[in-house]
């Protein structure tokens, strides 16, 4: 009697609640967290000609348990200057693209936040609309614009500004243009969200107290929109470091990026252990930015 009632009470109170918590927790643990452990595992195994193409980590033979931890893949990454150059190239390119996105996106978001109420929704939809179409096709658009026989070169040669086509395609320049173009909406969105929340009376107070426009911007607006700057920058920088499509379609031999190198290790060389080691090192390099973004985002999510 009593125990069953208590059990029923506990059941009602906790089992339902636990099940609700467990649903996303189990799914994401299984399909998001656990896979990373497997990447770590495979990165420590030896490459083998087999299906799947890697050797076992633990082997039980002749009554002895052998555990192989092969650090060779990581040492291999260090020994070949290609990989170091690719990591450095990715970080450099992503950084420049992020700064350019911020320089274009901040004034855009500022103007949007200042626009009359009705116009704001339209502007927001206009900025977001391209990102809802197709990433691949938006990158593809630049192939027709930047190539040697592309739109810009045709236009400039037609006008007689230049005699021979400018080499813009397959350069550092085209890769950065592609990243800025593809990721700009993700910079503008969080900046806009922060700037609309900005209390106008603070700016008025600053101006009433005789603060000049630039001074007010540097001392009031900029610090109060820092959350948006961090979120926007991380939303551009982190995926850009691992970008594959843009360097593949717009890049050339001198635009080495790690996402493309990883892809080729995996799909062309079929060297899964090296690809896994590349992914682990990339994750390690991005750990600080990801934690930074997470801290900001979870504040937004929970407050």
């Amino acid at each position, binding site marked *: 009697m009593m125990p069953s009632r208590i059990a029923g009470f506990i059941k009602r109170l906790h089992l*339902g609640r636990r099940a*609700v*918590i467990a*649903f*996303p*927790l189990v*799914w*994401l643990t299984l*399909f*998001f967290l656990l*896979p990373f452990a*497997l*990447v770590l595992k495979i990165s420590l195994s030896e490459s083998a000609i087999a299906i799947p193409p890697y050797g076992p980590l633990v082997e039980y033979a002749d009554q002895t348990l052998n555990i192989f931890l092969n650090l060779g893949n990581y040492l291999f990454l260090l020994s070949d200057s290609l990989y170091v150059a690719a990591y450095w190239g990715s970080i450099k390119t992503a950084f420049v693209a992020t700064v350019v996105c911020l320089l*274009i996106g901040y*004034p*855009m978001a500022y*103007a*949007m936040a200042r626009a009359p109420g009705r116009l704001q*929704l339209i*502007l927001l*939809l*206009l900025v977001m*609309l*391209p990102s*809802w179409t*197709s*990433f*691949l*096709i938006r990158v*593809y*658009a*630049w192939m*027709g*614009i930047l190539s040697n*026989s*592309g*739109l810009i070169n045709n236009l400039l040669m037609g006008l007689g500004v230049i005699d021979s086509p400018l080499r813009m395609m397959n350069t550092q320049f085209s890769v950065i243009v592609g990243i800025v*173009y593809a990721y700009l*909406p993700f910079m503008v969105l969080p900046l806009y969200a922060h700037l609309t929340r900005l209390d106008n009376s603070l700016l008025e107070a600053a101006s009433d107290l005789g603060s000049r426009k630039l001074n007010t911007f540097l001392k009031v607006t900029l610090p109060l929109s820092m959350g948006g700057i961090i979120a926007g920058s991380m*939303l551009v920088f*982190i*995926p850009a470091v*691992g970008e*594959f*499509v843009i360097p*593949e*379609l717009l890049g050339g031999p001198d635009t080495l990026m790690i*996402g493309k190198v*990883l*892809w080729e290790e995996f*799909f062309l060389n079929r060297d*899964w252990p090296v690809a*896994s080691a590349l*992914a682990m090192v*990339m994750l390690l390099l991005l750990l600080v*930015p*990801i934690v930074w*973004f997470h801290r900001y985002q979870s504040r937004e*999510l*929970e407050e």
Partner: protein
Amino acid sequence: MMRSRRRPSFTTVMLVLGLLFLYLPMVVLVVYSFNESRLVTVWAGFSTQWYGELFRDQQILSAVWTSLEIAFFAASMAVCLGTVAAFVMTRYGHFRGKTALSSMVTAPLVMPEVITGLSLLLLFVQMAQLIGWPADRGMATIWIAHTTFCSAYVAVVVAARLREVDRSIEEAAMDLGSPPVKTFFFVTLPVIAPALAAGWLLAFTLSLDDLVITSFVSGPGANTLPMVVFSSVRMGVSPKINALATLIILTVSLATLLAWYFMRRSEAKRQSVIQQGEGV
């Protein structure tokens, strides 16, 4: 303030230039889809022949169907998963595993796709070795992968709405004896329904658009639209892809226009209700 009214401010100029930067390449894509020449960059006269070729391309047509199918099921599952995650994060206070859950909800938003794709593939390979499933990679594995990363976006959208909603209505329902499940379905859900719709649409477009993760977890049987487009685009520009791009841009623009119309109408309705309320 007065000064800015006379001549456009720096930020307004930047906004206009930024929008031009975003839209001019898309305009170029659309214009050259009507070009007669095979060369995308030389204008040779108006023609709609590339649309005809597009609709005769069986590979593209079947890929469109595959992509739509996966996107529909992935978006639907992502809405369930993301909404529950958002609800748990915003309504359950503290529980064990909350930090883990919130990290796993925000991390997919920024995780480079090559890492996510590779890690999921390794999981599926390992699962096939251990439990014999999935024997073949294809629609099912793509569905799981898309659901996982899309649910993160849904969770962010829905959590934003859940934080805005007045909790006192939910509390009132509970105080009057409504069980939590009933309260959720009859009180909370109707209020956050627009966010669920927005989350579903976002997940749908993300799933339709994904190339990198899909390429890792796909098998021989399943070719999605981005995979087919990518293998074509790699070979260089082709007017057929421009025609496809035009149709995609048209569809998204119409859907956005429709969404904008409904948002404006519901806003107008809300305003009139408020005014009526004040009149009484």
